[in-house]
């Protein structure tokens, strides 16, 4: 990485607040293209709040978040939307629409106010659906899909947005084992092609396997960020989650098992 390229995502002296409570004290992180960052922590520790702050959708309690070298407030919302995408924790549908229509929503920041979706937009959306393995569902109503299929539609919508930075809030929700691994492999390959990925995960073992960097929140105001292999240590994890862990090496993978 040349010194002239600013990191994709950079947080400096970042601290998070929920109401009057400080969720975490100041910490810093830098995410470069090609890297994958995992946020771990117990329930209510502020993982989603952190992700929304990193997405520029929430003002940090203290500190500053920069996307490609510029603070969020220095960019327009539309410009930001072409650079980073956010996968929300829950997918809710109140109105019926087809899977293709739902996926085309991801093209919104790329289409002029007066223009309609072009053939190119349609092709991009169809390719995104194919990439998560549901091309054949394009014409189905979203409301008729299973939870896992909806989660994959949401991921396809994110791919159609074609951002440089992917922020994912529990991307493995509702997915079975095979798709959990497929989705993580998909984002790792996007990272290899030059994107950055930051995601909230619950599974310590999958985190260990896919993370280059990690942020560990302990729910008591503590936050540490750094290289994954330094952060994802039994002592630190036990302290954050408040449960004893065993570490083992199985087939070349490090796994943690609750004791």
């Amino acid at each position, binding site marked *: 990485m040349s010194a002239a390229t600013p990191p994709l995502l950079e947080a400096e002296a970042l601290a998070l607040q929920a109401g009057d409570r400080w969720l975490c004290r100041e910490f810093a992180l830098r995410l470069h293209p090609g890297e994958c960052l995992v946020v771990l922590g117990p329930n209510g520790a502020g993982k989603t709040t952190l992700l*929304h702050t990193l*997405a520029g*959708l929430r003002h940090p309690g203290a500190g500053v978040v920069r996307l490609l070298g510029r603070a969020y407030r220095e960019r*327009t*919302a*539309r*410009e*930001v*939307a*072409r650079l980073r*995408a*956010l996968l*929300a924790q829950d*997918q*809710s*549908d*109140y*109105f*019926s*629409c*087809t899977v293709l*229509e*739902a996926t085309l*929503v*991801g093209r*919104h*920041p790329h*289409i002029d*106010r*007066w223009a*309609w979706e072009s053939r190119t937009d349609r092709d991009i959306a169809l390719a995104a659906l194919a990439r998560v393995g549901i091309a054949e569902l394009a*014409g*189905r109503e979203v409301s008729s899909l299973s939870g896992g299929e909806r989660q994959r539609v949401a991921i396809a919508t994110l791919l159609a*947005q074609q951002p440089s930075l992917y922020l994912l809030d529990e991307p493995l929700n509702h997915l079975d084992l095979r798709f959990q691994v497929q989705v993580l492999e998909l984002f790792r390959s996007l990272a290899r092609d030059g994107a950055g990925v930051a995601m909230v995960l619950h599974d310590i073992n999958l985190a260990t396997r896919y993370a280059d960097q990690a942020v560990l929140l302990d729910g008591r105001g503590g936050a540490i960020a750094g290289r994954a292999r330094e952060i994802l240590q039994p002592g630190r994890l036990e302290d954050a989650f408040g449960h004893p862990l065993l570490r083992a090496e199985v087939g070349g993978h490090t796994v943690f098992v609750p004791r």
Partner: protein
Amino acid sequence: MTPRPPLLLVLPALLLAGLAALGWALVSGETRADWTSLIGALSGHDDFEATVVRELRLPRAVAAYAGGGMLAVAGALMQVLLRNPLADPYVLGVSGGAAVGALGALSLGLSALAADVCAFTGALVAMLLVFGLARGDGSWTQTRLLLTGVIVAAGCGAVVTLMLSMAHDARVHSMLFWLMGDASAAGRPWPALALLLFAVLACLPLARDLNVLARGALGARALGVAVERLRLAIYLLASLLTATAVTMIGTVGFVGLIVPHLVRLAIGNDQRVLLPASALAGGALLVAADTAARLVLSPLQLPVGVLTALIGVPVFLFLLGRHYR
């Protein structure tokens, strides 16, 4: 996938339906007019027939058209704003405020014009009240907005009942007619038609943002939609449309709920087509309903609101059954 008709053919088809309904409204009634005398009336002939068509039926039909269109667009907007496909333009208390204003004026024996002014003022007061109370500490959740609206509407309902129970017998009839929705008293409907046109044109550049918002507020913000500003704009626009429609034709029920629903069933939920199509369909439907209300028990005239409710309730229950099947 259910095959959908080419979206943009729907609009001319609905426009033609509206024109047909208007034509039917102009020729029907006690004084029969045929299609040739209709052209005469509209081009300025001066016989009795032409005067009836021009001075009585035309303003009434145009009022019904504009009112139906405004209620349907307001309903479609409210459904996106509250992200609830079962919301209608009255759910946030605007019609309650208008009713308090209008009935207050009628029970005091004020003129029709004063009743209009009071109705519009009441609607705006209710709108600002709901908005102010729901905003409160700066947050603006759908649930809070909805609950505040429902409570303000309930309060208005109580005041209306109070006024009806205290009103002079001679005035109760006109008050009840106003409450049920009645297009016969609408005097000057052309500005309302212009407002409807303006509202639809104002919605169009926002329509794709609304599509994104309908999928969820957080996702919409992440996609670069200025959600707070957009919600404020559609809230104000929907309230203004409702206030104008209610002032002109009273609280005609179910148009704002049923029309966007039927249009959605037919062409899907793309707001870029849904909003103009709702305007055209709402107008056509209410003109037809108002004409039917004049004819079914002729010479007795029904308030059009009774007819839309009688049709609307079973249609609504049918849709509800489908929706939560």
